[in-house]
């Protein structure tokens, strides 16, 4: 219920939003800098895990529980599949049908940005789902012993 000490809680307030923003930055800039879908997704999952550690599990689990995590993970897969199937409008699977701008600018990837967003959502909520499963399994085992 009550997580860690007030000092950790206060610093989490300042740092958590920066971590979430940095994760989204890594996801979106996958074609320009190190990172991409999976790495950014891990950082987003790390932000959620940090809030769970600092505030106890009720702070996050009331918005994202196990079912919600797996639903969002499947949504990420569906985003990827939808943009891959949209390639058939030009001829074949996984076609880069969006306009490609000037090289090394932000919008130079075409469909890479929707693909990495899908992968990022999948990775983030799959890892967070694994974390929830591990935590609740441990609680279940403890209550069973008593």
């Amino acid at each position, binding site marked *: 219920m009550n997580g*860690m000490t007030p000092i950790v809680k206060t610093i989490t307030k300042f740092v958590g939003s920066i971590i979430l923003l940095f994760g989204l930055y*890594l996801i979106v800039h996958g074609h320009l800098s190190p*990172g991409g879908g999976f790495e950014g997704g891990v*950082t987003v999952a790390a932000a959620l895990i940090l809030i769970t*550690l600092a505030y106890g*599990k009720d702070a996050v689990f009331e918005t994202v529980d196990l079912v919600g995590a797996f639903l969002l993970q499947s949504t990420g897969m569906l985003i990827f599949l939808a943009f891959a199937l949209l390639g058939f409008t030009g001829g074949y699977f996984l076609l880069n049908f969006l306009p490609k701008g000037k090289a090394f600018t932000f919008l130079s990837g075409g469909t890479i940005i929707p693909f990495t967003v899908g992968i990022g959502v999948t990775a983030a909520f799959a890892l967070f789902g694994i974390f929830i499963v591990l935590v609740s399994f441990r609680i279940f085992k*403890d209550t069973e012993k008593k």
Partner: protein
Amino acid sequence: MTTISGIPIYISVPLLISCCLCFWRIIRGPYSADRIVALDMFGILVISFCVFMAHYTDTPYLMDIAISWAILGFIGTLALAKYLEGKNLDD
């Protein structure tokens, strides 16, 4: 000039000596708490490595790796501290 993966040798050797001292404490430490302290400090040393590589090989995007190492090191240390307290996540 002699370099180790792009970093001049008069900068990388002190950092490598520091890393070896951290490793000595990780191997030797009597409690797990000592090992966690050494691991936390090792993470901060890796940030310096990333910054020097970004500077000397002229690849500024390595700074992203430094920032993410700082983030993951902090969260890992908090999780291990929580483990040391010997509590479940719900109390």
